[in-house]
């Protein structure tokens, strides 16, 4: 959206009136809303969602704080440029459905992003309140979730207006946020979209990775349902590059392909003892619990329920794993992270929630060895203490070992969560598809077209491990670009 459009929308009468209805001082005096959360002692006994959402009254009051800035700084922090003041002002005037629709102009998955975006590093970090007033920013994430949930609960999730069927078949590889948002946009434009998913469930990381207590499955299912109603077909248990080749997709008549296969490969640290029983990747742990429901006694899939669990890493995946471990009964659940807390890539809220739930943080510690018993089960970990040295390439201060400072801690389960690499399955299976040395697919930065003209790619397979909102944004941009290219072809 350009500046003129933004300004014109801001100048609409209802927004004028709303701005005039209260003095700035009245707005800035309101304290930031507090999210209602389940009590930590209770929530570690189950998988219910921790954040309960705002009531309409809370949402309206929080929306009232927003100053509807002439130059909304918040928008500069949003990776996809959501019209933030417009949706917030719709909440203030009580038109929650319009707020949801405003969100959907830009974001395909607001109910998801409202829950999982690192707002404290995006929109909220740029908010006028924080930047200029040195006050707590508007709770943009909570408001986004509120509007999206309201729409979902109202049963009035409007299907977008659909262009007539144009008969052109489009294939999507992977059903994570990138694939889903692309599918929606293409279906809307009249294409016949088929989404191929390797696993037996649709949703990618939203289903197998992010736990129920943070992102309930039903939230994702509503979105998948809407896509089904829009005519999108889902084929599970189908691996492109294995079950179907690139040539097969052509033979089946697909005219465009989006590769949104994610960054699914877990990294390990290659230290002694890492293959002991009880040491596993966070992907394995979370997949067992989330996708296979292994904590449920009725499920055939087993999972360790360690009493002293160490999770290695400081990202969202690490927080999700350690909080899951607490819920599966760990008395001692530890985060082991080689830098300090300030460098942790996890969302602030997850760190905060983990602490409330009794998770210990061993920052500036790095595992160097795991020790097992005679049956090959992990029993101890050796940690090297670290201190912060000079900033590295990523701008973060790199940790260096403190000579001789080694500590041994008893553990019976270790979850390694030190990052993921792109899934090489698709790149390996398609001759001539250009990839970087890291294994991500090379695309044109604007159109997301790969080195093979009818293949586009987005999300983690292009960015390495990134975020839901970026994957979603990629899906939408790829859809726009592919549509344009296909129209040109039709015209020619």
């Amino acid at each position, binding site marked *: 959206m350009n500046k003129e459009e933004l300004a014109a929308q801001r100048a609409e009468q209802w927004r004028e009136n709303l701005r005039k209805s209260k003095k700035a001082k009245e707005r800035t005096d309101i304290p930031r809303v507090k999210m209602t959360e389940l009590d930590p002692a209770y929530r570690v006994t189950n998988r219910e969602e921790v954040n309960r959402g705002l009531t309409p009254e809370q949402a309206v009051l929080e929306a009232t704080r927003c100053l509807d800035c002439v130059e909304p700084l918040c928008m500069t922090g949003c990776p996809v440029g959501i019209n933030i003041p417009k949706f917030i002002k719709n909440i203030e005037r009580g038109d929650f459905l319009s707020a949801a629709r405003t969100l959907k102009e830009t974001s395909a998955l607001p109910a998801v992003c409202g829950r999982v975006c690192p707002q404290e590093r995006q929109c909220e970090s740029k908010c006028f309140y924080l930047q200029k007033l040195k006050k707590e920013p508007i709770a943009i994430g909570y408001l986004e979730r509120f509007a999206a949930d309201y729409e979902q609960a109202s049963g009035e999730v409007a299907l977008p207006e659909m262009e007539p069927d144009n008969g052109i078949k489009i294939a999507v590889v992977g059903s994570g946020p990138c694939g889903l948002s692309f599918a929606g946009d293409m279906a809307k434009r009249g294409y016949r979209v088929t989404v191929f998913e390797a696993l037996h469930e649709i949703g990618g990381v939203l289903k197998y990775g992010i736990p129920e207590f943070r992102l309930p499955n039903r939230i994702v299912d509503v979105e998948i349902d809407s896509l089904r109603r829009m005519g999108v077909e889902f084929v599970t*248990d189908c691996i492109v590059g294995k079950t179907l080749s690139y040539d097969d997709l052509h033979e089946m008549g697909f005219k465009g392909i989006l590769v949104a296969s994610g960054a699914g490969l*877990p990294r390990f640290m*290659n230290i002694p003892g890492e*293959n002991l029983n009880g040491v*596993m990747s966070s992907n*394995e742990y979370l997949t067992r619990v989330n996708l296979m429901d292994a904590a*449920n006694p009725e*499920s055939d*899939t087993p999972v360790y329920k360690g009493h002293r669990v160490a999770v290695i890493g400081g990202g969202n995946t690490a927080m999700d794993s350690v909080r899951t471990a607490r819920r599966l009964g760990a008395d001692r659940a530890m985060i082991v992270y080689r830098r300090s807390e300030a460098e942790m890539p996890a969302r602030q809220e997850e760190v905060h929630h983990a602490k409330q739930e009794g998770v210990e943080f061993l920052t500036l510690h790095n595992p160097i060895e795991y020790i097992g018993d005679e049956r090959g089960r992990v029993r101890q970990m050796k940690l090297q203490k670290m201190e912060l040295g000079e900033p590295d390439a990523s701008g973060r201060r790199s940790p260096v070992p403190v000579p001789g400072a080694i500590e041994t801690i008893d553990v019976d389960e270790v979850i390694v969560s030190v990052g993921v690499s792109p899934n090489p*399955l698709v790149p390996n299976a398609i001759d001539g598809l250009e990839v970087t040395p890291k294994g991500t697919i090379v695309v044109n930065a604007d159109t997301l077209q790969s080195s093979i003209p009818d293949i586009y790619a987005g999300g983690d397979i292009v960015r390495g491990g990134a975020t839901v909102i970026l994957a979603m944004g990629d899906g939408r941009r790829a859809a726009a670009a592919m549509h344009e290219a296909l129209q040109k072809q039709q015209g020619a």
Partner: protein
Amino acid sequence: MNKIVAKEHFSEKVVKLVVEAPLIARARKAGHFVIVRVGEKGERIPLTIASADVEAGTITLVVQAVGKSSAKLCALNPGDYITDVVGPLGKATHIERFGTVVCCGGGVGCAPLLPIVEAMKAAGNRVITVLAARTKELIILEEQMRKYSDEVIVMTDDGSYGQKGLVTQGVEEVIKREKVDLCVTIGPAVMMKFVSLLTQKYNIPTVASLNTIMVDGTGMCGACRITVGGKTRFVCIDGPEFDAHQVNFDELLMRLSSYKDVE
């Protein structure tokens, strides 16, 4: 959902299932496997594709009931559906004309061995198959193996059928008798370990197909990881076949018992 179209009992605990899976039938090669799941609460378990019929659009699985999930699958009947079947997974077996190939399978390793025997024969190799089991009833697929082997040697621990002795004795007998260019071994980890030690002694290149615990089968979880040549490899994408002389079989043995106390 994949329909079972035929079922045959090879023994009390071993069944052959013919399953509708047209896309997999078309794409699969010898050595590939599938992951199946029975029921909405079911576990994902890996099974080798024993053979495929592209025309009929079916694949054949040979399943030995060893635990809950395999027993559930074995209990299904023609007309029933398997909740999920995904594949073909893994790397296909490297097939070429090596000369003389000894294929040895123990226990349920015989099922995944069959397609390799077949492909090795088709590539023009002299194929000698050694089948081993504790006792006569557990020897499976002998008839099918004979179809593609120049010779089949049967070994039983108790001597109730074929020769009395371990699989290694059968293999060594062949090695002493003639020049062997390649050995392929599939079976319990202990068996593969000893076959590998034997062929190392005689300097015979050996391929072992590893049967680690798996979850997704696409490289996503690392449950299937194992040390080969000092490096961690994922059996589902880098394997399942590896140079046996490089495999850390003791680690494999240990990792297979991973969930023993949990299940």
